């Protein structure tokens, strides 16, 4: 629920400026803490709408949103679509395999074609890091990154913040343990940045082969690293000990084929979160998972569906958070038209 203390007039002034100049959402690293709080507060209001009997508002009536997914996805694509539709926008889904991309059309030409149809927002998922940023430089519509390569997944990290805030209140000082494929995971990268921005303490644990080369087990990164004072635990037990949030990440089977892992069974034994490891965390600790889950690999079924699991809540909150993002970027009077008039195209 909205926190009284964060809503002082000065907070709102800053927040107003933050939200009004934003046009794209490409990464969490360029969002300020006050702007993130503003999105979380707006998502509270949106969550109430998603729980009504009549889930429809005219806020984005007449706006067109295209979701363009170059990778498979269920929850992210559906929740963006649902978010847009509840807000009253027309949502068109493009999947790369069923579009002209499969005929060899370049990304730039595909985007230009879509733009010629007068769209207001483009939600993009792409296997290449930076693809949404590239698109944002060539299009007038708002671009929302729905996951790009190993780079960022900003709406996932905002919904993780939202879910944790709903249970634990203030995020400041909370200990967040992220376990798994840190090297390739855009969720890990965005969540590390987002939770640290809100004052939480983040610890990661992963097999050495799935960590960036320069990160050493048992060390704490320097502030200049771009990941704040991120702690790298030597063992899962150390990472989970006293944690307020435990978040195992999906282990992709490709990693094993590429030689990063000896076997999924060994991964499961050493790094998988089961009820024994979960018991080391705080009694009130939450279990988050960005999905889809490989039960029996990075997470045991018992934990995945246990009382501390908020995985389904994450999915539900995802719709509200994406409503807040789309509304903030696309509502009339918010950023886009103002920036177009200025001719200033480079505000992210």
């Amino acid at each position, binding site marked *: 629920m909205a926190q009284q203390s964060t809503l002082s007039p000065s907070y709102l*002034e800053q927040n107003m400026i933050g939200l009004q100049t934003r046009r794209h959402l490409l990464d969490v690293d360029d969002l300020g803490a006050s702007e993130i709080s503003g999105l979380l*507060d707006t998502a509270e*209001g949106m969550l109430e*709408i998603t729980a*009504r009997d009549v889930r429809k508002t*005219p806020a984005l009536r007449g706006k067109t949103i295209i979701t363009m997914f170059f990778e498979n996805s269920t929850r992210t694509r559906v929740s963006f679509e649902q978010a847009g539709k509840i807000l009253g926008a027309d949502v068109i889904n493009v999947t790369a395999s069923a579009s002209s991309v499969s005929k060899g059309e370049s990304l730039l030409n595909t985007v230009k074609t879509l733009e010629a149809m007068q769209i207001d927002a483009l939600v993009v998922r792409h296997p290449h890091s930076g693809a949404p940023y590239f698109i944002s430089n060539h299009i007038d519509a708002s671009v929302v990154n729905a996951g790009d390569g190993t780079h960022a997944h900003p709406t996932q990290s905002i919904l993780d913040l939202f879910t944790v805030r709903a249970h634990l209140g203030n995020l400041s000082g909370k200990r967040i343990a992220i376990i798994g494929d840190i090297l390739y995971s855009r969720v890990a990268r965005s969540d590390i940045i987002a939770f640290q921005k809100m004052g939480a303490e983040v610890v990661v644990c992963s097999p050495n082969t799935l960590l960036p080369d320069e990160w050493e087990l048992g060390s704490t990164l320097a502030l200049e690293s771009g990941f704040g004072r991120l702690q790298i635990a030597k063992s899962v037990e150390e990472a989970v000990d006293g944690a307020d949030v435990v978040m195992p990440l999906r282990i992709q089977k490709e990693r094993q084929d590429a030689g990063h892992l000896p076997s999924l069974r060994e991964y499961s034994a050493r790094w998988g979160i089961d009820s024994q490891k979960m018991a080391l965390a705080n009694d009130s600790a939450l279990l988050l998972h960005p999905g889809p889950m490989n039960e029996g690999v990075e997470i045991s079924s018992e934990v995945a569906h246990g009382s501390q699991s908020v995985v389904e809540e994450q999915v539900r909150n995802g719709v509200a958070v994406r409503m807040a993002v789309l*509304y903030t970027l696309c509502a*009339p009077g918010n950023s886009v038209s103002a920036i177009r008039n200025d001719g200033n195209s480079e505000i992210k």
Partner: protein
Amino acid sequence: MCHVTNAKNGVNLPSGNNKILLTGDGVRRALTRISHEILEQNASSDDPVLVGLQTRGVHLARRIAENIENIEHYKPVVGCLDPRLWRDDPQVASGQPLMPSDIPTSVDGRLVVIVDDVLYTGRTIRAAMEALLDFGRASRIQLAVLVDRGHRELPIRPDFIGKNIPTSRGERVQVRMLEIDGEDAVLIGEEH
């Protein structure tokens, strides 16, 4: 429960150029009168559901509910509503977080009194009525405002008015409330 914050009109006017139109006592008397009028006009029908518009309208609705409790022997249900998503001019409040809406009872077949601080163009009330329809079919919707400053742009008329204040469009009416601003008052100043 409604969570109320001081988002709407969050930026305070500088003191000095403002004229006081209603003091704390004036606000209290106006709300007492509105409470009596609501009961009087609806004597034979069921008890009203008071729906305050975020943010100051919610506090006003709670005070009216307390007044009614003191007069009669029941306390009306108080809900809160942020009609922003239903506005035809959403830029008015853009950039501020959306406030939660919550009406903790069914409004089907009930009398609903929308409560807001200042009635001006009427656009907020139009949006609120439309938003309210999604919560159910009220038997009747009435409108109570602390201040009616004129300049309507839509055919909307309040049922209960605390004070009529003739204004020019260049002026700005500010309702200050104890719960948010530390005092009860209605001020008028120049827009800047």
